[in-house]
C-alpha cells in the first residue's frame, strides 16, 4: 500500500489534495518552488462561479459549491466567501440570444442554477448598469471569496492533519525508485510511493518528465483594482461576448478582470501587465458602468495560470504510471473547484471509483488522435 505521497505545487488544488490525503492517513509532503498560493491560487479574481461552466465541469462545480457553503466546518474559516450571486450581462440582442441558448442547454442537461432575467429584473439587481443592456443570465448563490486567505486556510488545515509543507524548493529531477519515485530539488531528495501533480502552470514540465506531454500554455489573466467607492454593486458581473469580471468588495474597492491576458515570463516565474489589454478592459467597464470613468485604479497585476488547449483541466490517473495522479490545467477557472480536487485525488489514491464524473478530464484525451 502506498503511504508516502509527494504533492508538487502548494496552490489551492495541492493544499486540497494534501488535506484529503492526510485525512486518509497518508504521509503527505507538499513541495513548492516559491510559497503556498504564490501564483494563480493566491492572486486570482476570487470568483466562486457555477455560471457559464463547461458542461463537463457542471457536476464538479455544483459539488464544490456545496463545500463552499460549509467552508468553516471543513477548514475553520469561511475563506471570505460571499454568496452575492453572479450575473452575465447581455450588451445587445445578439448577446441575449446567446444567453437564451445557454439557459436552454443547461436545462436540457437537467440543471436549473442558471436563469435568464429580463431588462427590468436586471435594472432592479444592477441599478448602476448602463441602460442599453437588455437582460442577463443570473446564478443565485454564486459569489466570490478571498483567494490567498482560502489557500492559507486549506494549507493550515492540511498541516493540522499532518501534512508537511516545504516551500522554496524547486524540483529539478524525478526518477523512478523501487515502486515509487525520487524527486530532487535543491540539495534534497524526497521519496514517494505516490506522486500528485498539482503544479499549475509548471505541470507541463512534470508531464514531459513522466513521458506524457500535454498541450498546456502559461497565461496571465490581468486584474485591476480601484480605490474605495461607495457601495453600488452587490452582485458579481460578467459580460457575454467581451472578457469581463467585475465585483465590489465590502471595503468598497472594485476588482476588474475577466481574462484579458498580460505577458508571462516563465523563466523569472512572473507575469507582467500589458497596457493594451488593460485599456480594453477599462473600456468595457466604462461602457457598462459609465460613472466608473472617474474611478482611480490603484493596482494592476497578473497571475500565472495553466491553460489547456481545450480549456478544461486534467484530473485523473496518469496514462503512463499507476502511481501518479494529475490535477492541473484548470485554465483560469479552477478556484471554485478547489474544495473537491482533494476528494477526487483521495478517491483515486485509494483506488476507489471517484464520486464525481471525471472521465472528460483524463490526460488520455490528448493521446487519442482526434477524429477531425
Amino acid at each position, binding site marked *: 500500500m502506498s503511504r508516502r505521497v509527494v504533492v508538487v505545487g502548494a496552490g489551492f488544488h495541492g493544499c486540497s489534495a494534501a488535506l484529503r490525503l492526510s485525512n486518509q492517513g497518508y504521509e503527505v509532503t507538499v513541495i513548492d518552488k516559491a510559497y503556498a498560493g504564490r501564483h494563480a491560487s493566491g492572486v486570482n479574481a476570487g470568483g466562486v462561479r457555477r455560471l457559464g461552466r463547461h458542461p463537463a465541469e457542471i457536476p464538479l462545480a455544483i459539488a464544490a459549491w456545496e463545500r463552499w457553503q460549509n467552508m468553516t466546518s471543513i477548514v475553520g474559516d469561511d475563506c471570505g466567501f460571499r454568496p452575492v450571486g453572479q450575473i452575465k450581462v447581455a450588451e445587445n440582442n445578439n448577446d441575449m440570444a446567446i444567453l437564451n441558448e445557454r439557459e436552454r442547454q443547461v436545462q436540457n442537461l437537467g440543471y436549473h442554477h442558471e436563469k435568464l432575467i429580463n431588462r427590468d429584473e436586471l435594472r432592479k439587481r444592477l441599478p448602476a448598469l448602463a441602460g442599453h443592456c437588455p437582460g442577463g443570465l443570473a446564478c443565485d448563490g454564486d459569489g466570490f471569496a478571498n483567494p490567498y*486567505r482560502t489557500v492559507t486556510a486549506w494549507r493550515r488545515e492540511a498541516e493540522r492533519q499532518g501534512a508537511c509543507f516545504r516551500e522554496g524548493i524547486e524540483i529539478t529531477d524525478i526518477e523512478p525508485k523501487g515502486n515509487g519515485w525520487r524527486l530532487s530539488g535543491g540539495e534534497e531528495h524526497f521519496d514517494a510511493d505516490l506522486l500528485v501533480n498539482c503544479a499549475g502552470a509548471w505541470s507541463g514540465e512534470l508531464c514531459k518528465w513522466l513521458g506524457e506531454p500535454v498541450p498546456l500554455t502559461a497565461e496571465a489573466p490581468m486584474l485591476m483594482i480601484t480605490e474605495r467607492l461607495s457601495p453600488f454593486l452587490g452582485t458579481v458581473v460578467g459580460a457575454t461576448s467581451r472578457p469581463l469580471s467585475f465585483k465590489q468588495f465590502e471595503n468598497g474597492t472594485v476588482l476588474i478582470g475577466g481574462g484579458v491576458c498580460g505577458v508571462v515570463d516563465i523563466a523569472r516565474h*512572473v507575469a507582467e*501587465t500589458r*497596457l493594451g489589454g488593460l*485599456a480594453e478592459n*477599462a473600456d468595457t467597464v466604462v461602457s457598462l458602468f459609465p460613472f*466608473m470613468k472617474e*474611478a*482611480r485604479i490603484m493596482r494592476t497585476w497578473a497571475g500565472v495560470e495553466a491553460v489547456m488547449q481545450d480549456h478544461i483541466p486534467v484530473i485523473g490517473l496518469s496514462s503512463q504510471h499507476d502511481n501518479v495522479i494529475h490535477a492541473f490545467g484548470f485554465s483560469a477557472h479552477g478556484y471554485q473547484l478547489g474544495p473537491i480536487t482533494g476528494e477526487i485525488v483521495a478517491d483515486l489514491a485509494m483506488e476507489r471509483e471517484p464520486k464525481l464524473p471525471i472521465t472528460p478530464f483524463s490526460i488520455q484525451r490528448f493521446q487519442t488522435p482526434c477524429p477531425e
Partner: protein
Amino acid sequence: MITHDLVILGTGPAGMAAATTALEYGITPVVIDEQPAAGGQIYRALESTPVRDRRILGEDYWSGESLIKGLKDPQIDYRPATTVWQLTRQREIGLLHDDKAEMICARHIILATGAMERPMPIPGWTLPGVMTAGSGQILLKSAGAVPQAPVVLAGCGPLLLLLATQYLRAGVEIAAILDTTPRNRYRAALKHTPGALRNASTLLKGVGLLRELRRAGVRHIKGVSALRAEGSGQLERVLWKQQGDDNWQTLETPTLLLHQGVIPNTQITRAVDCHHEWDEQQLSWRPRLDEWLSTDIPGIAVAGDGGGIVGAKAAAMQGQLAGLGAALALDKLTLANSTERAQPIRKALARDTAIRPFLDVLYRPAKQWRLPDDDTLACRCEEVTGGEIRRMAEMGCRGPNQTKSFTRCGMGPCQGRMCGITVSELLADANQQSVEETGYYRLRPPFKPITLGQLAKAAEEG
C-alpha cells in the same frame, strides 16, 4: 508606439545633469517630470518661488539655476506635469499628461526619481498638524507658506536643521528642535571625520547651520529618547523624554515637523523587479548598480539618490556619469572614450561622497524611531498598526507580500511607499531574520493612480 533613444525620469540634479551630458554627445533626450517646474525636491519651484529674498532659502538652493537653464535647451524634449504610471522591463513607459494616457518606448532609460523621507511612525504621527519637514519645505519653496507657529521640529538629519534655519530667516517662531540623535552617535561618527574632511565645505555648512540656530537662541533639546504627539482631532501638544530622565516634558504647539533622513525612492526600480539590496549603513533598500549606474535590467540605469543617498551635488555628478553611460550604450562613445571622460567625474564623486559614512553614522535613526509600537499606525492608507504586523509575523508571515494579503497593508493609494520600509523592518525584527531575507512588497503598476476613463481612452487611440 514611438521609440526614443533616451528617456530620463525626473528633473532633480541627477536628471538634469544626465540630460545635458547626453546632449553633449548627440543624444536628444526626452525628460519626463511629474512636477510643473524643473528642479526636483532640492531646487523645487526655483523659477517661480515667491520667496525672492535669496538669503532665506540659501545659496545652495539658488545654485540650481544653471542646471535648470541647461535643461531648457530647445533640443531637449522636456515634458513637465507628466506622470509615469507604468514601466516595463521592455522599457515601455506609460505616461499621463493633461488627462491623456500614452505609451512610449526607450532604448535607454535613466531613472532619476530621487529620495523620499524616511517615515517616522511615532504615536500621534497621523494627527492633523503633524507633517514632515520635507513637506514643510515644499510649502515654503513653492508657495512661500509656513505652517501655524510656533513650530516644533523633531528628529534628526541635515534637512531638519536646514529647514529650521530657513524658518528662522523667514521669521517663523520655532518653539524647539527635539533632536533624536543618540548621544553616543557623536563619538561613533568621530572616526569617520577624516573622510568627512575631504568634503569640508559640506561639513562646514552643517556647523554653520548649528551656529546660526544657537546664536538666534533656538531651543535645541538633545538626546530625545521618546516622543509622542497628542491632541483631540488635531495636534495640541508634543511630549518627549530625554535620555537619562524618565519624566515626560510637554510643549503646546499647533505644528510638529518630523524628519529622520531620506531614503531612496525605489518604487519604480522595484516595480520592474531590479535586483535590490539592503544597505545596512543607510538602513534602506537600493538597486544594485554597476560602474555606469546600470541596473541588472538591460537599458535601465539609476542616477542620484534613487540608487542610494548621496546628496544633491553628487547626484548631479552621477547624472553626468549616467549620461556618459547612455552615450556608451547608444554607441555615441567608445568604451575607452567614455571611461576617460568618466574619470574626473568619478574622482570628484569620491571626494564629495566621502562625507557619507560620517553623516550615515551620526544620523542613523535608532530602532525605536523606525519600528512603531503596537498601537501606532504603520500603514496610514489602510490603517494597519505595528501590533497587527507583529501578530501577522506570529501567525507565520515571513514577508510583506503575505501581510499584504491579510491586512491590506501597503495596498492603499500611496502604493506602499509610506509603509514599505517600516513593514519590512517590523517583520524582520519580529521574525528575527534579516531585512534582506524578509524582502519587500511586489509593486504593481500604476505607480500613480490613473482613472478608468483615462485608461479607456488609451484603448480607443490604440
